[in-house]
């Protein structure tokens, strides 16, 4: 699995290196100016955080039913990547907000729920790390709760009055904006897949190591 990760990493790296060029070619937004360019590195990780949370929940549910270790590795990797991408979204967001809204943070529905969902997956990681034996089962249950919050995070801007832009912004983007956005998104997505493969291969090797230790004791 590790072998497959490297070409993906390379492609993702190329995409990231060239993304600024595509982003610079997009026009400026009329009211926000230069700072709106953060959008191209804010929306993809935010969207992928939500998708990753849902993916983690689905894989965790499958793990609870089938108990295959590979599913557990996938869930663990997905949770780590949810936290990573969530951190990116929640650092780039306030940097943009400082200029666009005048404040670093507001407790509106979208930001609060994103933070809570992110914290659920951080607590997932803490549980896996410090919970001792058997914590992967409980963590899988926790991931289900995390997944349940994801749709609410997405729809929160449409349901409540928030300062955050609505979900209608992305489908109605002008062409050059859309090109830059989806180009960046492709980079983030490929990076996600590559990192997940790397992470899973770490777990796979560890499981092999444990098995060999057990065998060597006999």
């Amino acid at each position, binding site marked *: 699995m590790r072998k497959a990760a490297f070409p993906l990493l390379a492609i993702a790296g190329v995409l990231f290196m060239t993304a600024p060029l595509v982003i610079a070619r997009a026009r400026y937004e009329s009211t926000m100016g230069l700072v709106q360019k953060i959008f191209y590195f804010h929306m993809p990780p935010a969207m992928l955080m939500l998708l990753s949370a849902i993916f983690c929940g689905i894989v965790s549910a499958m793990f609870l039913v089938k108990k295959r270790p590979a599913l557990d590795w996938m869930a663990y990797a997905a949770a780590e990547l949810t936290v990573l991408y969530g951190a990116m979204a929640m650092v780039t967001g306030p940097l943009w907000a400082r200029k666009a809204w005048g404040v670093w943070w507001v407790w509106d529905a979208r930001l609060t729920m994103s933070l*809570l*969902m992110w*914290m659920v997956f951080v607590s997932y990681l803490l*549980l896996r790390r410090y919970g001792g034996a*058997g*914590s992967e089962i*409980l963590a899988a249950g*926790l991931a289900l709760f995390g997944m349940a919050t994801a749709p609410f995070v997405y729809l929160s801007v449409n349901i409540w009055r928030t300062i955050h832009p609505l979900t209608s912004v992305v489908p109605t983007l002008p062409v050059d904006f859309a090109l830059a956005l989806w180009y960046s998104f492709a980079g983030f997505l490929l990076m996600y897949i590559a990192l997940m493969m790397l992470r899973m291969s770490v777990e796979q090797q560890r499981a092999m190591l444990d098995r060999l230790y057990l065998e060597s004791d006999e």
Partner: protein
Amino acid sequence: MSTFWRVVWIVARKDIAIEARSRELINTTVFFALSCVVVFSVSFVGEGGDGKALGDAAAGILWIAIAFSGTLALGRTFERERYGDTLRALLLAPGSRAAVYVGKLVGIVSLLIATEIVVVPLVALLFQAKLFDHFLLMAALLVLGTVGFASVGTLFAAMLARARSRDVLLPILLYPVTIPVMIAGVRGTSALLALEPQLDMARLWVTLLLAFDVVFVTLSLWTFEALMTE
């Protein structure tokens, strides 16, 4: 179906009977909740002479006290089970595990409601907060909020009963998931405590709490079976 409710009743009655005899949990939980209220009051009551709390502080303090004392009560309920090694016995017992879950939930909700019966009037007194003007709405907020919090809490506490670092892991896992319930409780309570009580806002929050409760109890019931493997 009737065996389900019989198991629920037996499990709940066991917990309540143990509690009624020693009153350990109820006494310590109530006193801890009161300590919380005092600590937070000292932090949030304005300096001015009238001693009125800042803004929505009374509502917030009430729900924080419920959350903190609830977390401790959850931990110690299952500590009791772990100590007596009765958890395995409960799970081996005939009858669905979901019934065991609901029975434990009933016990914990009863404990928390009993705590709130003491703490809520005290908060009303200390903050001159008119918590009883709209008693039904206030009771609905408290009961639904407690059920929402306890439903997830019972699940996690049961799972963690034999885990390492369970004392600190319970709040770490529980709070992010149940903060929406807390938010709804606090917002609903402060709507009732406003200078002109906003009853329809409070009713909105009650409805939202009901939705949370349905989702959380259902999800917890589904996962309890799968998570309690031994």
